[in-house]
């Protein structure tokens, strides 16, 4: 058994596609129309054969209150690894991204939390130098 997919629940797939590619910098792996929605996945250009992130519609009625409760408390839906949290934070702020937590050293890691504009907070993280 292998983990090949993970997902975020997005409020609009077209908006999510733009944010996750143009802003975060991921590449489209699959974009297959499936009725009302699409099977839409992105990958990191640093790992094109790696884990795919599914940009999955949050259309189930339970999804929206769940997401809103997480956002209110500042809790990220998922986390991505970066080489340098400060540099990535500065790059994304320059692109207009809203952070709810600036880069902060938390024990062994440095983390920051951003808004994906699709109803989620996303954490970026890097291990601190030993």
């Amino acid at each position, binding site marked *: 058994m292998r983990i090949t997919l993970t997902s975020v629940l997005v409020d609009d797939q077209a908006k999510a596609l733009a944010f996750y590619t143009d802003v975060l910098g991921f590449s489209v792996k699959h974009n297959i129309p499936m009725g009302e929605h699409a099977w839409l996945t992105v990958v990191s250009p640093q790992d094109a054969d790696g884990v795919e992130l599914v940009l999955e519609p949050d259309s189930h009625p339970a999804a929206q209150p769940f997401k809103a409760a997480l956002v209110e408390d*500042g*809790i990220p839906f998922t986390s991505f690894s970066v080489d340098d949290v400060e540099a990535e934070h500065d790059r994304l702020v320059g692109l207009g991204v809203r952070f709810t937590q600036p880069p902060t050293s938390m*024990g*062994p890691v440095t983390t920051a939390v951003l808004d994906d504009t699709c109803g989620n907070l996303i954490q970026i993280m890097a291990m601190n130098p030993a």
Partner: protein
Amino acid sequence: MGDVFKALADPTRRAILDELTERDGQTLFELCARLATKHQLASSRQAVSQHIDVLVDAGLVRTRREGRYKFHHVETEPLQHLADRWLRPHKKDPA
């Protein structure tokens, strides 16, 4: 208004104020992460939330909603009253 001394009598609540003093305007998530990683406090998110409620009742923390987010801010005014009462009584107007 809750008791300021009671609010300050708990080490977790003092740590919350320490962290908000270091960076004001944090989400519950950031506060919990700071308490866990910097203070080795293993409180649940719900327990931290209850500690924050006590600090809010005592006027030491204020919550601010901004869009869909909720941030926590330290409020030092109740401490100012304590200083005025005992450290600077000469500055106090006659009651």
